[in-house]
């Protein structure tokens, strides 16, 4: 822990590793949880994980239905008894699915938001004679007459496939339904009438196997929901405009502060530093009114125009760096008859590449992450940046489709993390030279 050059002996290094590892788990766990959730099926986000594996890995089930192995969802456990009998029947006439509480039984409605009666009625799904339905107490099957009494009061002819009147062998019975990858997007489900044609069965526990269920389809679903392409382009537009603006303006201003000896320079520079201490909420209202007067509210202009006038922090940063450049170089250029702008372009810029990269990186990060600016100034959803789209997706749903939210968040964070790994050197250098930002 001292800064001497000796490597730490093992008896000290081991506990240090231990503490750092525990800390690292604390720091990485949320990210792991985010990525893990982004690959999970919806059902699993509505369930307390029973083990660490189940918390980090998507789990599903597989079962054989009518000779084919399906990915299935365990809808619910059923316990047939003399008071609570169940029948699997095949209707001989067609009828609208909405007339039954549910082709798989009544409880399903309440349990799964993805599958509700309203939606079935809206799409006017028809139960045909090719399907099987689960008859129960509420939609009982009359075996003697071969009649299924629907909840609506209508009676249809049906033939019995299997009667489940008691739990045999003591094994638990599960109602399972075929799972499809589009189930992952709550909006898509119910919009196709194919939903009620899915394979389903009542199976004993031994017929169901657990399986790992990773769902990459969460990603396209989530991206559709946050209107990704549009939001991404909006965000990139703001990022590029601010980065370019900040680079050009801050460098020019920093050059003025560093190398041109004009009256009032020191006091103006001090003022520049002082402006960094003003928190945004204080100037928020008048700034908003100013932009509104200019007619800029509802456009991207409030988000990037300021950057072309310079940014106090970057001016400060670049000036500090410029002051470290050899003055002789500038004087030589002046004697050769270069104008200040020429010196800036031909002498200073080539020497300032590293700090400029740093400024670009910081500003990119800042614009990419910005939330309050877009929230105040943008009001049309086609203009939303990624932050705003993600936030509105999350608030629309009161935060239930966690798997999609996590997928969208992952995609939103990923570019910065990739950028970080590509520019890790600039990052580390910027940390050690400035150590000031935020």
């Amino acid at each position: 822990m001292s800064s001497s050059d000796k490597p730490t002996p093992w008896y000290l290094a081991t506990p240090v590793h231990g503490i750092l590892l525990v800390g690292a788990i604390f720091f990485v766990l949320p990210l792991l949880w985010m990525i893990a959730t982004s690959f999970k099926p919806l059902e699993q986000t509505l369930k307390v994980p029973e083990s660490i594996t189940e918390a980090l890995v998507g789990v599903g089930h597989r079962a054989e239905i009518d000779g084919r192995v399906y990915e299935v969802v365990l809808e619910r456990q059923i316990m047939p008894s003399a008071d609570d009998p169940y029948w699997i029947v095949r209707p001989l006439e067609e009828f609208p699915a909405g007339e039954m509480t549910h082709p798989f039984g009544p409880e399903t409605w309440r349990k799964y938001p993805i599958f509700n009666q309203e939606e079935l009625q809206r799409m006017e799904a028809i139960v045909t004679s090719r399907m099987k339905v689960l008859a129960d107490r509420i939609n009982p099957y009359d075996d003697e007459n071969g009649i299924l009494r629907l909840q609506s009061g209508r009676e249809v002819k049906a033939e019995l496939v299997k009667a489940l009147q008691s739990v045999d062998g003591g094994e638990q019975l599960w109602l399972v339904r075929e799972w499809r990858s589009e189930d992952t997007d709550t909006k898509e489900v119910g919009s196709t009438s194919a939903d009620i044609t899915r394979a389903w069965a009542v199976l004993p526990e031994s017929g169901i196997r657990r399986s790992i269920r990773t769902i990459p389809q969460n990603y396209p679903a989530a991206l559709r929901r946050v209107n990704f392409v549009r939001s991404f382009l909006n965000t990139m537009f703001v990022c590029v405009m601010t980065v370019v603006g900040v680079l050009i303006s801050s460098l020019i201003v920093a050059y003025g502060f560093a190398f041109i000896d004009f009256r009032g320079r020191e006091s103006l520079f001090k003022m520049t530093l002082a402006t960094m201490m003003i928190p945004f909420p204080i100037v928020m209202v008048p700034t908003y009114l100013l932009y509104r007067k200019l007619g800029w509210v509802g456009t991207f202009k409030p988000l990037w125009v300021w950057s072309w006038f310079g940014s106090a922090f970057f001016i400060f940063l670049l000036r500090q760096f410029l002051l470290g450049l050899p003055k002789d170089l500038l004087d030589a250029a002046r004697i050769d008859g270069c104008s200040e702008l020429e010196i800036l372009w031909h002498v200073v810029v080539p020497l300032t590449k590293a700090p400029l990269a740093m400024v670009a990186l910081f500003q990119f990060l800042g614009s990419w992450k910005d939330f309050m600016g877009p929230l105040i100034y943008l009001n049309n959803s086609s203009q939303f940046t990624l932050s705003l789209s993600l936030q509105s997706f999350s608030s629309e749903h009161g935060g239930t489709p966690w798997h999609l939210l996590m997928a969208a968040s992952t995609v939103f964070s990923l570019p910065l993390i990739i950028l970080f790994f590509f520019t890790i050197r600039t990052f580390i250098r910027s940390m050690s030279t400035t150590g000031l930002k935020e």
Partner: protein
Amino acid sequence: MKRSTHLTLTGYAFIAPWLAAMVFLIGYPFAASLYFSTCEYPPLRGPLFIGAGNYQELAHDAVFRGSMLITIIFAVVAIPLGVVLALTLALFLNSRIRGRSIYRVVYYLPHLVPSVAVAILWMWMFNPQFGILNVLLSPFGKIISLLFRPFAAITLGVPAWLGLILVAITFALWRWLKRLSSPLFQSEVRGDSLKPGKLWNLNQWSEGRRVLASRLSGALFAAAMLFALALWLSPSDIMKVQSPGWLTDSNPFPSMLSVAPSWALWALIYMSLWGVGQMAIIYLAKLQDVPVSLYEVADLDGANWWQKTRYITIPMISPVILFNVVMGIIGAFQVFTEPYIMTSGGPEDRTRFIAMFIYDQAFQYQRLGYGSAVAWVLFLVIVGLTLLALRISRDRVYYAAR
């Protein structure tokens, strides 16, 4: 003369954009905000001067006072925790062990996640039913409740102020003994003002005895702190530690201390600590600038690790710590995204940070004048707190001569 005019002109030409920004994007809003704060400002009409009306209303606005208090509580709890955690991390990261660059990347990663994603991710972490935090916490919570339950039974009848008094007494005792046994004090006072026989003859104690006494009193102080904490904790708190409702729970923790952060605020504090890696990396950079010669001299004097950290490392990086504290204060008053997304100020306004209060007044209720008045009070509070931080730190921060 000619040349200097030319230089001035060129200089101003170079900084012209920034001058314009300072005037129009900072100076004007800053001044206008002061003016608007004395106005009724219906959004579709112009400002109407009403004098101190907004400020009078503020004085009676319980929601405003609540949100100011919450912001300050957040700053008071989160900033010290963040500084201590970042410093500890930096000290560990500064050791020469294999793979430390990997650790650095890992600790830095959270800073790269955009705040909206952070907010949504932590809403999911804090989900009381299915969030992983409560899943992981429940075994620890059981241990904590096992440890505290017998304790709580003993302390049930004891008034809470007793704990504070005990803490104060043991603290005073500890500092006093420590000061008496410090070499500096010994050389200063021995011989003249301290005659043998005074102060229970403490200065006649042997060196070892004195050190032992100061350590014992330190332990006593720690025990008193724990005891006081246990007094604040009610049985319901201890039950709750196993699976708190986090963002949905407006009760303070510990529940007997009404100014303590609510569970929802604790959640936000906890979340803010996740981003502490950034600060740790800054400290780390500064740690590496501390001259090695100082440690070598300390080694010669036989200083141990703690002494080197306490008397060399921390003073040498104290300017950065001060800087972080000041920026932390300013930052606390700008916290917006997280409460806006995660709690929308609730439960029961327990996470309505002041920046969010201003946003609500200005943009939800269209009370632009009132919002400006809040903004100005906020500005004065920030200036005051910053000056306070600078004042407190004046004799405690070491600036190396340049």
